[in-house]
């Protein structure tokens, strides 16, 4: 059964990006294809990313930079800038619904996002100052680590309640939310707030450095470290990303690292794909989609690593 699931993952990973093989062969960059073909290929690729990301329960931002950075002719500086905008747009657009539905907590997101946005600025400045090869190697290692984290935490998640710590009490990081799945109110308290702030600062650096959405790290930090119920952690993570990525996005914009030809097609592709993904979600097992994502991340991570090492 597991073998079948992994085979499906490998097959779907191969199908995920029809432009990848074409893109990987393009040397010198862009040779043989008219300029307008690339935004189209990017749109199709990000559309498929959007579907897979929703079904796998992650943001499209974490797939975008490794895949587009590894297989498309665009420089990593512009890919990271577009990746940040992609993650930002996804997070911003889901924010109102999450807040109104009580599935995200503004007061929980605010202090964590402050730490994360300072980290995001540091990461963006470091990322744009470092040589591309070093960033590629670091990206490859990070993406492989994300894949390993996703593999090991695929069945984890805890909703045990904890006593709030001093900082959580001072900031009012507690409350209750309505979980429609169980039809009941869930009480929650945050704890280990200091560690959570440190974690979000670090996550912000990684997000700004590589242009990745950070839901893969935010959710475990909120749920496993701070004791926030999983559903609230997922919603609050999205809200935090919408603030954290803003700081890094401004740095990339001011440094001239946002290339318009990449941004709109990517955002449109992922957003439309996410809408389709919500429907596909009913027909496909989340575990299969998660295996697809892990397989894609491993392939993209290895490619980034090899590119950085000049192999």
């Amino acid at each position: 059964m597991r073998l079948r699931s992994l085979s499906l993952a490998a097959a779907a990973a191969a199908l995920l990006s029809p432009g990848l093989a074409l893109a990987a062969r393009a040397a010198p960059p862009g040779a043989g294809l008219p300029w307008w073909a690339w935004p189209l290929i990017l749109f199709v690729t990000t559309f498929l990313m959007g579907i897979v990301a929703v079904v796998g329960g992650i943001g499209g931002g974490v797939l975008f930079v490794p895949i587009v950075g590894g297989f498309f002719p665009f420089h990593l500086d512009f890919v990271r800038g577009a990746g940040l905008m992609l993650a930002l747009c996804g997070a911003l657009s889901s924010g109102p619904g999450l807040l109104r539905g009580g599935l995200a907590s503004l007061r929980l997101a605010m202090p964590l996002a402050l730490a994360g946005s300072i980290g995001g600025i540091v990461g963006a400045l470091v990322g744009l100052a470092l040589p591309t090869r070093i960033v590629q190697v670091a990206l490859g290692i990070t993406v492989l680590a994300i894949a390993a984290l996703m593999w090991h935490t695929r069945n984890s998640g805890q909703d045990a309640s904890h006593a709030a710590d001093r900082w959580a009490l001072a900031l009012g990081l507690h409350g209750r939310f309505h979980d429609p799945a169980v039809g009941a109110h869930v009480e929650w308290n945050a704890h280990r707030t200091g560690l959570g702030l440190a974690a979000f600062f670090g996550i912000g650096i990684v997000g700004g450095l590589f242009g990745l959405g950070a839901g893969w790290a935010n959710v475990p930090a909120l749920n496993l470290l701070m004791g926030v119920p999983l559903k609230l952690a997922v919603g609050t993570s999205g809200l935090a990303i919408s603030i954290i990525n803003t700081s890094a996005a401004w740095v990339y914009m001011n440094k001239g690292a946002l290339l318009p030809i990449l941004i709109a097609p990517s955002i449109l592709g992922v957003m439309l794909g996410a809408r389709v993904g919500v429907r596909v979600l009913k027909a496909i097992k989340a575990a299969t989609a998660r295996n697809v994502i892990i397989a894609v991340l491993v392939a993209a991570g290895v490619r980034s690593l090899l590119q950085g090492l000049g192999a």
Partner: protein
Amino acid sequence: MPVSTPERRTEQEAYAHWLAWGVRLGFSALVGTFFLYVTGLVPAGVAPERLPELWGLPVDAYIAATGAPTGWSWVHRLGEGDLLNLVGVAILAATSIACHLRVLPLFMRSRERALAAICVAQVIVLGAAAAGIF
């Protein structure tokens, strides 16, 4: 037993309301100006036909080759289709700042000084990033 107070819901609602408008406005501007750019209705500063030989360059080399603007100087060149597209990006990136400014008076009114201070600090951090101080 801790519960969500009405004030908290008010803050969330106010933040969500401004966020929704910011996203609508920013996304419409992003898509609309991109259409003007790729169709050539507003001529681009860097012609799309030249992009395949340029988009593989690091950002510093790209700027040197094209004279693309840094900081806020793009605002003076909104007649160029590619730079006009940054209006949507700027609106989206400014939305969180506006949302924090919206909820700041609510936290002050309810005397939640810690959250009000975080709100002010966040606006300063994002404002500094937007101003290009870093």
